[in-house]
């Protein structure tokens, strides 16, 4: 199925007018509210005609210091060879997204990585802790408002150069 067929099918089978379409909506991804994500993910994974059995990537995004955070899921179906991008936007003050760890096993590590870098909480994740950074690291480095620490365990961190020379 190509993207338009996917959207049509989802609107028919999952919920009426679940995916907004129109000229101002770019036709390459689906935006989903965080509260709908879990049901929708189960539908995508288990529906016979969609059957998105593989999760390719989870990307965390920060839209700017004053703005929201986001999570992007890239899904793929090995059986039907089609793919889909799902985007979720969440507020910076309360970044909570339901976990899909039980649906795609790899989501376990991808979600941990996203949590590690952006501090996005994945509700229902069985073991949400840092994965790449040390356990006692403070802050979430890929956020745009991240302040670089001056020292770590007594080791001074040299100040970053202004600009790139």
């Amino acid at each position, binding site marked *: 199925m190509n993207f338009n067929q996917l959207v049509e099918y989802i609107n028919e089978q999952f919920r009426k007018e679940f995916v907004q379409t129109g000229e101002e909506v770019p036709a390459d991804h689906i935006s989903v509210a965080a509260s709908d994500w879990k049901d929708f993910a189960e539908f995508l994974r288990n529906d016979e005609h969609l059957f998105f059995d593989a999760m*390719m990537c989870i990307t965390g995004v920060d839209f700017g210091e004053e703005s929201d955070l986001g999570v992007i899921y890239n899904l793929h179906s090995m059986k039907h060879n089609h793919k889909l991008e799902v985007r979720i936007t969440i507020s910076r003050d309360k970044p909570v997204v339901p976990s899909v760890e039980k649906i795609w*096993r790899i989501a*376990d590590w991808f979600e941990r990585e996203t949590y590690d870098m952006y501090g996005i909480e994945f509700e229902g994740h069985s073991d949400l802790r840092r994965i*790449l950074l040390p356990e006692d690291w403070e802050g979430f480095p890929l956020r745009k408002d991240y302040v670089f620490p001056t020292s770590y365990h007594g080791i001074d961190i040299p100040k970053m150069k202004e600009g*790139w020379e």
Partner: protein
Amino acid sequence: MTESLDLELGSVQTEEMVLNMGPQHPSTHGVLRLKVLTDGEIVTRITPYIGYLHRCFEKHCENVTYEQVLPYTDRCDYIAAMNNNFGYAVAVEKLMDIKVPEKVEHIRVIVAELNRIASHLLAVGTFGLDVGAFTPFLYCFRDRERILDLFEMLCGARLLYSYIWVGGLSHDLPVGWVEKAYEFLDYFEPQVEEYNNILTFNKIFIERTADVGVLPQEVAISYGVTGPNLRGSGVKWDLRKDDPYSIYDKFEFDIPIGTGVVGTVGDCWDRYYIRVREIEESVKIVRQALEQLPRDGDVHEAIPKKIRPPKGQLYNRTETPRGELGYYIISNGKPIADRLKMRSPAFTALSCIDEIARGWMISDVFAILGSLDIVLGEIDR
């Protein structure tokens, strides 16, 4: 004497033991720590701890220009740097809508496939080393060395090439390189038979790897395992064929999948054997690309003066020796990426270790880890 042996099994005190493997351990292929929970010699649970090589690749990418990101991609998967350059270049070109000349495309495929051979040789050799066979390792490195010589001739570097640039290549082929490449292929093709004799069908090797660490199809897909590991489980999936990029659709080659010749589909031996057979397929591709290589053309022709992609975002994936390498790039029209995420194939491959190594002996963990062919530089980024 007989009385002391007359112990009832139930009365023996046993308890679970935690065995710490790594971070410094020759069999972990880098700096990886595995916390192995064992019951006697049987593994009951493995918890991997990663991040020892974390270098903030993604944070760097938000602070340097697109050109400057390129050398960092080398250092992620340092065994197959060409393929990593290739993936990055293809992603940015797609974002900028650049069409690269035919000659560049051919050279890219040639070096990427040569690098795939080199990477698989290392995987095959070190896998032998992991299960206690030292000689094949030397054979593999002898041949890998010749590929590195070819790369040195191309760009001066033997490990971190930064050869494939966005829109082109750093250097054109030097005089006499094509002949040298043919010479290598002629020499190399019969050698594959030698690996099969010395390692693949060696009885001790088969005993150590066949039926061990079976990765079933559904589990592999659910864990996002890609590349030779997925194909070892019998899934015919290769991005070069199923979602072709560059000019891979022009060449004829097979996608070997695991069939369980000596054991079960998806065991360590299958994953290993896929790599040996992929070496043969890569040789085929290099030969075809060398034959079709256009003689003239400027490799610097399509390189943009300044890389400044228009507003937009995309996820682009390519096939490296380890599987699906994805770059998610968000551009807001500046010379610096707003977000650059790298999805590394080794990261997903390692995540399934707990699932497939459970119930096996401690010594089998090394075989399973070796068969997954992970590169820690890419996992930790």
